[in-house]
């Protein structure tokens, strides 16, 4: 899943981005509102982490404009904790609200919840045949046996699972698994898919030639 974090405190932005990457997300960053707006409208992010006070374009204003066209889940970060501010932010279109200073783990958990909800997934665990995907723990097990997957592999499995029954094109996979910082050569989707098939079984992922992949229910 790909996230966008917009925060003008450079050090804080670095910490958040690194933590989320280490949690398995692809993370794009922006230091001001304008840059954030450009990126938010260029890609389909799975979730947006937005600071309220931003130079250039105010976080709330960015959100308002974004909501005219997109339904991206947004979690608002701010140091303002007055109840009125929280109400204001939520009413403006934010899906969640975190007051600084916050715990990075909590941020990650809330992002997980947002993505889950956006995919219509109520529960933290997905059951596909004998395969259990634990979205919270980011782990996959087959008949109770945990299957080790790389971060990329898990991300791909999660993406396909959250969109199960729907066709996931290659470009979608590119957009959601990799972020702008990625420059590794091991980003060939086919490679990841074949690794997954090796670990979870051939029938796990179905290929639609020339179109993409699909995970059957």
């Amino acid at each position, binding site marked *: 899943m790909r996230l966008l974090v917009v925060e003008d405190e450079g*050090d*804080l932005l670095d910490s958040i981005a690194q933590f989320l990457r*280490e949690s398995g997300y692809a993370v794009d960053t922006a230091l001001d509102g304008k840059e954030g707006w450009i990126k938010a409208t260029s890609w389909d992010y799975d979730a947006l982490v937005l600071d309220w006070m931003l130079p250039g374009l105010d976080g709330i204003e960015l959100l308002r404009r974004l909501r005219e066209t997109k339904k991206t889940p947004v979690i608002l970060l*701010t*140091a303002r904790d007055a109840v009125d501010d929280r109400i204001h932010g939520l009413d403006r279109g934010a899906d969640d609200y975190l*007051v*600084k*200073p916050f*715990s990075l783990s909590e941020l990650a958990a809330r992002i997980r919840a947002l993505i889950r909800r956006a995919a219509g997934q109520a529960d933290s665990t997905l059951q596909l045949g004998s395969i259990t995907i634990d979205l919270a723990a980011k782990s996959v097990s087959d008949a109770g046996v945990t299957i080790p997957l790389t971060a990329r592999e898990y991300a791909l499995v999660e993406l396909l699972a959250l969109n199960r029954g729907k066709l996931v094109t290659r470009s979608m996979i590119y957009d959601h698994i990799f972020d702008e910082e990625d420059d590794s050569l091991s980003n060939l989707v086919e490679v990841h898919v074949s690794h997954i098939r090796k670990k979870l079984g051939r029938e796990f992922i179905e290929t639609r030639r020339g179109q993409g992949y699909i995970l059957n229910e």
Partner: protein
Amino acid sequence: MSNWLRSLRLRLQVWHALILMLVIVGFGLVLYRQMVRARWADIDGQLLAAGRILEGALRAVPRAVLDSLAKDIGAPRRPLPPPPPRPRDGGQPLPPRGEPSDRGRPGGGFFPPGPRPLEWERVPEDAPQRGDWERLLALPRSLPETLARGEDEPAYFIIWRRDGSILRQVNSPLKNRERPAPSDLPPGRPPLSSRQQGPYHEVFLRGPEDSLICVGRSVRREQARFMHLALQLTLAGAVIFAGGLLGGWWLSVRAIAPIKRMSETAAKINATNLSQRMDLSGVDLELEQLGVVLNTMLERLDSAFAAQQRFTADASHELRTPLAVMLSTIELGLAKPRTPEEYRDQLFKCQRAAVRMRGLIDSLLTLARVDHTPAQLLREVVRLDAVAEECIDALEPLAQERQVRLTTRLDAVAVAGDAGQLGQVVTNLVANAIEYSHPQGEVTIELRAVAGSAELAVTDTGIGIPEPALPHLFERFFRVDAARSRSRGGSGLGLAICHRIVTAHGGTVEAKSTVGRGSTFTVRLPAVSPEATSQATAPA
């Protein structure tokens, strides 16, 4: 009980009632008195007219009678001896004894010969008045009744001779009254004086030959009428009084109502509800003034509270941000084993954040101190040039680091104030100038005495300040370019602190700027003579 006494409405009522009562009573008394006096004057006039008739009649009496009036002094009255028989007349019957006769006695005796004087005796009061007196004092028979019309008794008159004996009295209620001595007569212009004698009203005139005429009449009925009038006036007064009270009460309710409304509105106002304002529609002029004053005060309170809330929110925001940086960095560092380089990097980030927090807390404390102790402001004589020089020296390293040249032109000027705080102002302004200058830029600090003021100007050749930002420069937490100043550790309070200190010292600070060329900050403070003795105010 004392609460009652303090009620404005009650006091108004009481005063109003008292004054109204006084006015009504006064008016009633005056009215009554005037009516009574007019009636007496009326009656006096009538009595006087009758008296004058009597007086005229007396004067018209023949001389001889008048003379006998005059001569009638203290002579005891006694029956006249019968005249001796006159032989020559032979056989004429003599008048019976005791009867008045108009035939004078011939010969000697009291009276000289001549026209026969009339002789008379004190007339018994119930003796029928006859003959000459009737003619002489011809009064219309009906006059007594006419004079005393409306009364039960007829009018009366009494005429006293000079010696005090009664010449004639008619209908007198008190028989054989003593002639009143002159001092007993009521005062008044002679020949008239009138008085009330019990239920009778009398008029006195002086008659010829020092006789005294008294004409009087009963005024019982009149008095009864006056009583009745008084009663009517009292009743009317009471009714008017009651009406006035009611009217006054109604008026006071109406007048007090807006005051009550205002105090109700005021009662609803508390710290969390300062948005209420007095309703000034249709309110009287005097009350409106009060209402306007109250509303203005509320406005100021409201904005003061709002400003304080904003400040608190801003301050907490400013403190939370570096704290968030520290906590996130630490959490990240502890999430999994890291390389020493990563740890170092994270520690540096924490340090930067902590330094920022320290700077912010220092600024907040300074601001709080300046805010709370204007009364305790040290008022020493401070050589501003010495203070400035010291601060500038301390900033040399920073200037060198930024490759900015510092130029100073300091005149010897003294001000009254706190050297420490003034130094802070200089440091703030010069440090800002250095920060915002381009490399190879120049910062100029000038201090001059201008028309009784010390003028300190700090000029930089830096990026300048955009026009819209100029009015807000000295607001707390205001930053022209948030990202830039924050990365330098600026809290947005530096200029606010300068402004506060300068204002507390009775001076002004202003900024002028051209974007891209530079800015000038000018501080003006009242100058003092350097030789003046320093006074430190004792803490309040």
